[in-house]
């Protein structure tokens, strides 16, 4: 039962069968995705916790052995990300199970697209084939366009079109890079490319690297490629924005890391990543500070977090990768919580402005509390999980002797504090002037947010819950030879 193939197969299959289920019995549309997400989460956890150290689970599709066939690699690194994605996907489902604005007719499309997106993301993370990765990325992207444009009333089409425009460019670049790579190495298998990449002409290799960098950078919300992000995040439904932050961006950054850590052997890219990451942080956080709309603010903050993750990965040290993974975990969990909470906070306000939130702490105590908790966690205040991520991040930075980067990150963190605490101040310490018809969070939303909050507090109080796994994943990412050995037992790195 526990086979990585099911990750992709089952969501894909049920996604397209969902309308049929709907014909049979309407509520199934809501229930089936939940079962699917629960199932994927279950198998991913099952696989992940039963993983033997240093031995990834490798599945060969259709019986073709690598390098000819497509293979899925469920290692400690990819397994971690997949577990995170499936877990959060399940929570997003729990939250949106009876989300009021998603009527039954619409929920068909909604869940179909959501499942497609999740399946695509899982595919991106698991696949061992570079072209396959592209395909999954496109699945994710197209379903994301759909999800962005989900609400008819808003400017969602505009957001989706921008997303699409840039996303298409991204896919073009990635495809071009794959083409060049194939031309040079004659293979699409990542392990084999990794072996052969040393032989590629450095000029060509640099072009490939840049193409990949820009292509995946768009998904990873890198500056200046992230024009679509605030629009998409702010126009998509609340849970979708959450899943963008936790799933889409994660698959983008995963692809970036995988390509540059494992597949391509280019040193110079890390400096580029560092620069881009820093620029991303600066522009995103500073822009976020001047936002008047909650969702856009969260979106920019999300970009900033992604920049931080990029910076962490750019050190090319174990400490850096460890910190990056920690930040990814934090960002996924906390941003999801924030978006989920903001979904209810801005439910009934037309403009979704921050100033409409005056005194919500009293009207919506639970949701406000969750938002406050998320805000505390994301700016890195102890004893929440965000702090440990930041701590590891900064020690890693210091270990790389980048003191100025530390200063910059901390200055930006101050900016972050300003805009998050402005919201908290409005939520709790302002009097409500006019009445507003609010949407109380449904029980399942409460459940989803509570779980996330518990994770945040739990990890915050005792980060060793996850540090072991992160450390293992880090080791796996750096163990390039091991990866190749496991994927291609016949070949080995010279």
């Amino acid at each position, binding site marked *: 039962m526990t086979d990585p193939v099911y990750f992709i197969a089952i969501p894909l299959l049920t996604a397209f069968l969902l309308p049929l289920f709907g014909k049979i019995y309407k509520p199934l549309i809501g229930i089936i995705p939940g079962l699917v997400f629960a199932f994927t989460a279950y198998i991913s956890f099952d696989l992940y916790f039963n993983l033997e150290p240093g031995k990834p689970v490798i599945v060969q599709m259709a019986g073709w052995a690598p390098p000819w066939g497509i293979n899925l690699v469920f290692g400690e690194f990819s397994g971690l990300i997949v577990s995170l994605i499936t877990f959060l996907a399940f929570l997003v489902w729990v939250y949106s199970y009876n989300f009021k604005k998603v009527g039954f007719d619409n929920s068909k499309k909604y869940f179909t697209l959501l499942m497609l997106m999740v399946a695509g993301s899982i595919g991106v993370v698991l696949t061992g084939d570079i072209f396959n990765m592209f395909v999954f990325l496109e699945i994710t992207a197209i379903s994301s366009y759909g999800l962005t444009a989900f609400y008819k009333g808003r400017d969602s089409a*505009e957001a989706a079109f*921008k997303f699409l*425009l*840039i996303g298409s*460019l*991204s896919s073009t*670049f990635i495809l071009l890079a794959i083409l060049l790579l194939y031309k040079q190495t004659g293979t699409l298998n990542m392990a084999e490319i990794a072996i052969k990449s040393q032989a590629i002409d*450095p*000029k060509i*290799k*640099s*072009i490939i*690297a*840049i*193409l990949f*960098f*820009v292509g995946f950078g768009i998904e990873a919300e890198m500056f*200046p*490629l992230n*024009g*679509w992000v605030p*629009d998409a995040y702010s126009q998509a439904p609340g849970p979708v924005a959450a899943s963008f932050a936790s799933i889409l961006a994660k698959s983008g950054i995963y692809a970036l890391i995988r390509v540059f850590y494992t597949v391509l052997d280019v*040193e*110079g*890219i890390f400096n*580029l990543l560092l620069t881009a990451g820093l620029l991303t942080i600066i*522009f995103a956080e*500073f*822009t976020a*500070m*001047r936002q008047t709309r909650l969702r856009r603010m969260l979106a920019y903050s999300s970009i900033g977090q992604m920049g931080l993750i990029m910076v962490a990965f750019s050190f090319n040290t174990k400490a850096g990768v460890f910190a990056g993974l920690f930040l990814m975990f934090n960002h996924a969990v906390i941003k999801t919580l924030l978006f989920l909470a903001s979904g209810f906070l801005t439910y009934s306000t037309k403009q979704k402005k921050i100033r409409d939130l005056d005194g919500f702490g009293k009207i919506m105590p639970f949701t406000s509390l969750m938002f406050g908790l998320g805000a505390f966690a994301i700016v890195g*205040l*102890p*004893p929440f999980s965000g*702090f*440990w991520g*930041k*701590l*590891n991040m*900064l020690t890693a*930075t*210091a*270990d790389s*002797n980048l*003191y100025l980067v*530390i200063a910059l990150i*901390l*200055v930006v*963190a*101050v900016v972050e504090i*300003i805009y998050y*605490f*402005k919201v908290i*101040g*409005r939520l*709790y*310490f302002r009097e409500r002037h006019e009445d507003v018809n609010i949407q109380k969070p449904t029980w399942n939303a409460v459940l989803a947010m509570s779980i996330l909050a518990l994770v945040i507090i739990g990890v915050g109080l*005792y*980060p060793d819950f996850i*540090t072991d796994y992160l450390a293992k994943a880090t080791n796996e990412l750096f163990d390039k030879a091991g990866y190749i050995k496991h994927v291609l037992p016949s070949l080995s790195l010279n």
Partner: protein
Amino acid sequence: MSSLVILILIIAGFALLSYFGHSINKTAGNIAVFAAAVLIPLYWFTRVDFSETVSFTISGFQMELGYNMYGKLFSLIVMILSPLALIYALGYMKDSKRTGTFYFSFLFSILGMTGILMSRDFISLFIFWEIMTWSSYLLVIFLGKDVEKTGIRYMVFSALGAYAMFMAIVIIHRNTGSMMLNDYFNAFGNFSTGTKFLTGILLMFGFALKSAVMPVHVWAPGAYSNTPMAYTSVFSGALSKMGVYGLGFVVINLFAHANLHFAGTILAWLGAVTAVLATFSAIFQDDAKKLLAYSSIAQLGYIVTGIGIGTELSIFAGLYLAVLHAAFKGVLFMAAGAVERQAGSTDMTEVTGLIRKMPLTFFASLVAIIALAGVPPLGGFVGKWMLYESLINNGNFLMVIMIFLSSTAAFLYSYKFLFGLFLGQEEPEFENVKEASPLMTIPMLLLSVFLMITGSFPGIVFKYIAEGMTDLGFHDVNWQMSVLTNAWGDSVNLQHVTLSIGVVFVVFLIFLTWKGYKKTYYVSTKDISSSGEVIKPEDNMTYSTDFYKPFERVLHPILKRKIEKYYDEFGEGIGALFDFMRRIYTGNGQTYAFYVIVFLVILLVFSKNIFGY
């Protein structure tokens, strides 16, 4: 389980208990708070083992909790002041809303302070520091006034300080591979000069910010005066001392031992400047809370000066002043709170003549003000004396003058506080003001008794300070129960002082009261000599607006430059910059696509530089 961990858990437990207690009903919550106020110090005094250390490793960082004597000294402040403030809060917050949040944050900030003082490594120090910061932030904006300005300003400055510390911490970790305080102190001498300065100054900045030293004090007046007064007593009395605590070990353990005395001297200068300017600002405040806030900053300036000078006597003075400041500022903020609650305002131009309505509060504030002004025979004098003597012994004559100027000018605001609230004409408006409830007056009176005792027997505090200073490397600090001695051997015998003042006072008291006792009348404050004009009850003749106008005219050249203005302008400039920066997100999809292409082209053009093939 270790008693230290249990202490932390007890405080956290009580925080949750009072939160949930208050969400059930008020009585239950108040019982929980009262229990916390009694049990936490009880546990600390009786059960906590000060020789114990707890080590554990989290996320690959070794951490250790354990008291040293220096931390114990400050814990003493926390553990005495906070329970009193909690009890006071029971009276003060009786009719407020959201008391659950209040007590939760209150107890959490106590938790933060307790934790800071028992941290033996930077990680736990920072964690508790941040807990303290955000819990106090919640209290700063608790009343919902000025959330944008004061709250954000407090949080931004706190964050700046905390992050400066954070940066220092990671750099230290990079250089020593350890997070232990002691490892850092031991290794400090071997660092390169740049690292020495970077870590030292960053740490100093972080701690100095919490103790509201001059260029970075701007958060303090608003934060102190905006918070519910029940907490401000702790905020100003104990929480700001955490900065002093940190400065103490940074300045002494690092700069003094690595022969970087000038860093300490700079700190001392900043402290002196703070003392002077904050005092000048305090003089012209019309709100008693603001006045006390500025006064707090000034007092912290003295403490910082004492610490910064770094001689035995000066540190002794600084620590002693820290203890005393906790006591008298605790009383004063509590008194201001009592007035605010009973009379409805602390505006000194409005509230007058409460002395006969609130005699206990007045008495407590009188004692505290005398201690604050440093007038013998109360405890404040002892600290002032030691500070001056240490500065004079050290030859820092300009600093002495500044401190003197500040503390002479401090008489002005001391008087203004008492006069503005308690003296002056009794108005019919405040006819029905009652004395505050015993829950509020008893903590004040207890603290004022402490202040009176320290006037003659400061040795009860000296004992702990001398113990604490062993951890700063000053062994065998001489102290006597009631004799103060400076480095040149000159001394003040406090018992003689008290005795002489007491005898004279009593003799003349008897004389003055007994003489013509039956023919001495009390007349109301409306019965004043005013050229025969009859003052009607509703006429308020009290002179309290522009109280120190002439002095303001003198100081105008200094006071017209407000450092807040520079910060505000800086903030506005930054905001404008950010607004400009975000224009890059034009909203036009095509522009975004254009960025992508341009980015790609730039990378391709410079690929040679990037990849270096």
